[in-house]
């Protein structure tokens, strides 16, 4: 047996990723599912580190584990869905689901066989893992993304922006009767317009002046 430490770490991370991936779909409690999903993301980040793609690993943790999965967990905890009830029809839907999975797998295989790279792409595909140790992984990725793939990169950003605006437009509703705090108006309020000092004669009382502004 000749297994180096990086190999051992790879098998550790890989088996954790696969095992937690299985547990995501088999866990009974949906919150547990999300927690397993987070573990899967995290060990995938570990795999990226082993490949020398430390920038991608950190981004995976920041974006997926740190933000997306938090919101995911947030929603799943708030929802009051009986997931075991949803799961009851599983055997019934298994043939259809299996068929779809099978078709997808077939398409992927066909694609990987028939796929050919353009002339530049083969060179570009190698450049994010630089052979020159002076060039860091982050720099190499940036040089590739902002030169050859700048338009695709910008388009991806634009699509995300459109999706974000779309989500806001879809969920924004104007509810009447909701009083909102106007911080500017509050801060600009002066004592003169907020209250009056009144000398009250004893026994006379005072009639309230009409409310100002």
């Amino acid at each position, binding site marked *: 047996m000749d297994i180096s430490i990086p190999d051992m770490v790879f098998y550790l991370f890989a088996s954790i990723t696969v095992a937690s991936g299985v547990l995501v779909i088999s866990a009974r409690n949906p919150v547990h599912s999300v927690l397993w999903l987070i573990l899967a993301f995290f060990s995938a980040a570990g795999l990226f580190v082993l490949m020398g793609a*430390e920038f991608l690993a950190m981004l995976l943790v920041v974006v997926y584990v*740190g933000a997306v999965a938090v919101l995911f967990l947030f929603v799943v905890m708030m929802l009051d869905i009986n997931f075991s009830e949803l799961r009851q029809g599983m055997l019934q839907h298994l043939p259809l689901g299996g068929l779809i999975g099978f078709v997808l797998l077939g398409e992927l295989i066909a694609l990987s066989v028939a796929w050919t790279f353009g002339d530049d792409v083969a060179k570009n595909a190698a450049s994010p893992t630089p052979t020159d140790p002076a060039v860091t992984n982050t720099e190499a990725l940036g040089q590739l993304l902002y030169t050859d793939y700048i338009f695709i990169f910008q388009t991806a950003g634009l699509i995300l922006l459109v999706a974000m605006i779309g989500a806001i437009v879809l969920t924004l509703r104007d509810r009447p009767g909701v009083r909102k705090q106007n911080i500017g108006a509050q801060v600009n309020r002066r004592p003169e317009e907020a209250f009056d000092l009144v000398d009250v004669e004893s026994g006379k009382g005072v009639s309230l002046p009409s409310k100002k502004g």
Partner: protein
Amino acid sequence: MVEALFNLFGGEGEFLYFVAMVAAVLAVVLPLLLAVAFSVYFDRKIWAAVQMRRGPNVVGPFGLLQSFADGLKLFLKETIIPAGANKIIFLMAPMITFVLALISWAVIPFDADMAIADLNVGILYILAISSLGVYGIIMSGWASNSRYAFLGALRSAAQMVSYEVSIGFVLVCVLIAVGSLNLNDIVEAQAGSVLNWHIWPFLPIYVIFFISALAETNRPPFDLPEAEAELVAGYQVEYSSMAFALFFLGEYANILLMSAVMAILFLGGWHAPLPVLEFIPGWIWFLGKIGFGFFLFAMVKAFVPRYRYDQLMRLGWKVFLPLSLFFVVFYAAIFVYGGLLPTNG
């Protein structure tokens, strides 16, 4: 740091390297835990001084051992697990909080070449780990099976995700000036004297970073996840004994970490303010700067009343997000058109 210890031990064999690594970790973690204990004491003393009280002054000289007495008290108490709690997650949550608070320190450079790991993506690593901190809170809130704890956890999730965005933009501004994600490079870019520190050109984003760090560490005035006036103690409400102590230690370790990050990004890291003062070792300067950052945190706690939740969200999304985005554009424009970009890449 690992390499230095490795050479000190003889510099041969994988086992010795492992020993050197463990020694390096202990050399950071043990002083850190001591520092956490004393920072709790200093926090309480500063708070007391602002309110013209004495603060802790009974246990040990000047009350210095108060934190240890509190720790011992918590250690001796019974761990209570609520009947309706999800036991495993309930017990895992404080451990996660504590571990995450410690592992960020792996990349903090205390002096030139004095960090456990000198990562190329050091600052991203810190951002990643601090963004994981929310899991300890959200898991504890959910697993406690209590309304108060759950509300605290939900608040904290929204709060930490919101303020991370502006922290990210602040980091981008500094990274434009440095041209590297490596913490060593960020500190070296500020070498020379106090005039070279990033705090001068980046003063506005230093303020943004500081306020966002308050929110990120759930410190007053943004301690809404544990707001005792409305949520009893938020996500900590069901915790007792060591589980509570782990949350507490993790919280303070995170505050010290944020102070350290501020020292690295803006206050010149381990560099002395004047070249004349270089004879004092760098790590003493660095610890002093962490102390300064912690002092700011403690003073804010004493001065500022707690925010309301909608005000907190408004500040994060409607003020800090556009402002920090503006500063990214502003600094990028200055550096690009002023020809000030670093030339290492």
